[in-house]
């Protein structure tokens, strides 16, 4: 497969209560989306350690998605507010280190937003495809 055709790989950290349920809803309603995403279920978006995110990038993920309940709707009241704060900073910092901030997304996806989940994956896949592999040389160097 040529580089251009290669399907980007997205690691998605989804909170159990909203976004994971939203992704389930996309399934239940048979809303198809690209096969680029692989989901890791976490109880809350606040559980996502930025070190997980960088690790995913380093192991070859082209993009990382963190998704949680909308602010105010967190199953644990406040988890996603901390997530937002943390990743406002992390997104910029990743970018500062040379990991294009378009590769990282945090999205609020409720349990009823199956279509939004599918759309997020579609958008992200398209954007990542345009951005191309993150750092082909670096990824290969690590893979060897």
């Amino acid at each position, binding site marked *: 497969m040529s580089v251009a055709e290669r399907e980007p790989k997205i690691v998605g950290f989804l909170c159990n209560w909203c976004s994971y349920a939203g*992704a389930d809803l996309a399934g239940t309603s048979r809303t198809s989306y690209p096969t680029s995403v692989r989901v890791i279920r976490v109880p809350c978006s606040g*559980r996502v350690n930025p070190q997980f995110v960088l690790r995913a990038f380093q192991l070859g993920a082209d993009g990382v998605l963190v998704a949680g309940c909308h602010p105010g709707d967190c199953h644990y009241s406040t988890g996603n507010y901390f997530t937002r704060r943390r990743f406002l900073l992390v997104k910029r910092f990743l970018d500062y280190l040379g990991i294009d901030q378009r590769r990282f997304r945090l999205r609020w996806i409720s349990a009823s937003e199956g279509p939004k989940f599918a759309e997020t994956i579609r958008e992200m896949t398209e954007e990542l495809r345009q951005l191309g592999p993150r750092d082909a040389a670096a990824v290969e160097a690590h893979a060897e």
Partner: protein
Amino acid sequence: MKRVGVFLCWCGSNISSAVDLDQVAEQTALLPHVVHVEQYKYLCSDPGQETVRKAIKEHALNRVVIAACSPRMHERTFRRAVGSVGLNPHLMEIANIREQCSWVHPDKVTSTPVAVDLVRTAVAKAVKDIPLEPSYVGIEKRALVVGGGIAGIQAALDIADSGYEVVLVEREPTIGGRMAQLDKTFPTLDCSSCILTPKMVEAGQDPRIRLLTYAEVESLSGYIGNFEARIRMKARSVDLDRCTGCGDCWNKCPYRSPGEFDLGLGKRKAIYLPFPQAVPNKPVLDRATCAYFQKDGKCQVCKKVCAPGAIDFEQQDEILEERFGAVVVATGFDLWDHGRYGEYGAGQHPDVISSLEFERLVSASGPTDGKIKRPSDGKLPERVVFIQCVGSRDEAKGVPYCSKVCCMYTAKHAILLKEKIPSSQSYVFYIDVRAAGKNYEEFYRRATVEYGAQYIRGRVSRIYPRGDSLVVVGEDTLLGQKVEVEADLVVLATAVVSRSDAPQVAQKLGFSYDQHGFFTEAHPKLAPVETNTAGIFLAGACQGPKDIPDTVAQAGAAAAKVVRLFAKDQLETEPTVARVDRARCAGCEWCRPICPYKAIEMEAVTERVGSGQVARRVAKVNPSLCHGCGACSVACRSGAMNLLGFSNEQVWAEVEALCL
């Protein structure tokens, strides 16, 4: 040694038609630790679960991966299945290859690699699974009910009737709440106090219920089964033990001021009984309006006339500390202040009143003895305009939601008006009439058909005085024309809103509230009376606008939840909670403020350093408070705080497996 069994579910053909499960099985079998891979048509069925159980025994499996539908669907099912053959239920992981694979990637060529990845990731996580056990805490079998309206009364009665002690805290001098202010109730037109009063009395007399009126909860700490409340008993200036409720004091008290219970439509004394049926049927001295306190310290008439010597000017606020196992919050609602509508007279015109004021005017025990005298001149109104949705469903100036009860009580008001003043005519401006509920539509129709209430669909744009009457200008949207009605009295169905101090109450008690100040239920459908703080339940309109039957039903439900809790001697908590590695913890306390449940406290540990003992502080998680969100585990830089079930090791392994 880890022996992982992987079970691939066809889900009929839901999965098997879209994913090449043979290939998934083949690749999965090559993974480290995987010793058994099996497919089955319906794993969640009894024979399917039996397949898993059998394989666990036959292949000595100690980790199980189920590749099937979403864990949100069947995690419990399979945990139970695994647990039933002696394997710890938390040594099971689910790979979601239906909702997040076969249903969204129906093409086998593209979906199969996804399924392979998801199964591999679940295996990687399962390998890092450790057995988890719940912990247990004792339960203080006493309930605290906050708020003495019908919701609180009902909850207290139900809990007490089940044999448990209840403390009912009401901040007003009497229980009864809003319902006591109502005249009749829809759709049956029962007299409100006739059905409420017996319950108030019952609550006052039940030996298991302790009424604390004129009291407020100052703070609540602890956790489910083990709350500690500080309750402030406001100085009532009346010794309740001595007072007989004879009435001499309030009869003799020379000072009158507008009475709260009658919304200022009538007067009460400085020492007063809010209403005749008050429970406890004993007065309170309002120091803000009492001459003894406010002027010269001389008056003391009440004290002089009180034979039992119950008046106590020196009384101080008192703090009670009590332990409870559960809390029911039933703090009720307020009405929206229609003063914010300038076009309706900005609350300045005495004859533009709220619906609750109308209740007091129409009530036989009200300031007008049930005669509907309009406030400005005491005249009996002939033409009365009722305006619905005042504040409700008004995103611009009011609140966006429907207050739910106004349609019905306005119909009731129209009926009551006609009954009291047969010559009168009522006009009702409405947006729509919402009469969903048993006998509600019929009731509304009675108001229009039998009592001749004239319903006009449309909003009122202006109210202005003309002579001694009011002109109500609106639009009839059905006819598409402007209407003007001259009225003697205008009654506004103002929105039901949260208590102004609801956010403070929520913060004090430790649960969440929405942007309107209504308390948030743990789940809008499946946990409508629970809060997100275990052990605290909601009843009545503090959670959202409700009519009396809904309120009573919810109060009963909240009571049932409390009783359900008290029926156990110990509480089993979810095992997926945070855990501290004491050796690593530096005691920096960073995790503490981040925990939404205040589940983290500090403890001292001593350890050997060289030949001596050294004490230091480390974090400690209370497993009964922890809900397992994991926020602390991310805040903890050293990794000393970990979340069982979604541990650092597990998620790390998942990331690695996923990116392989």
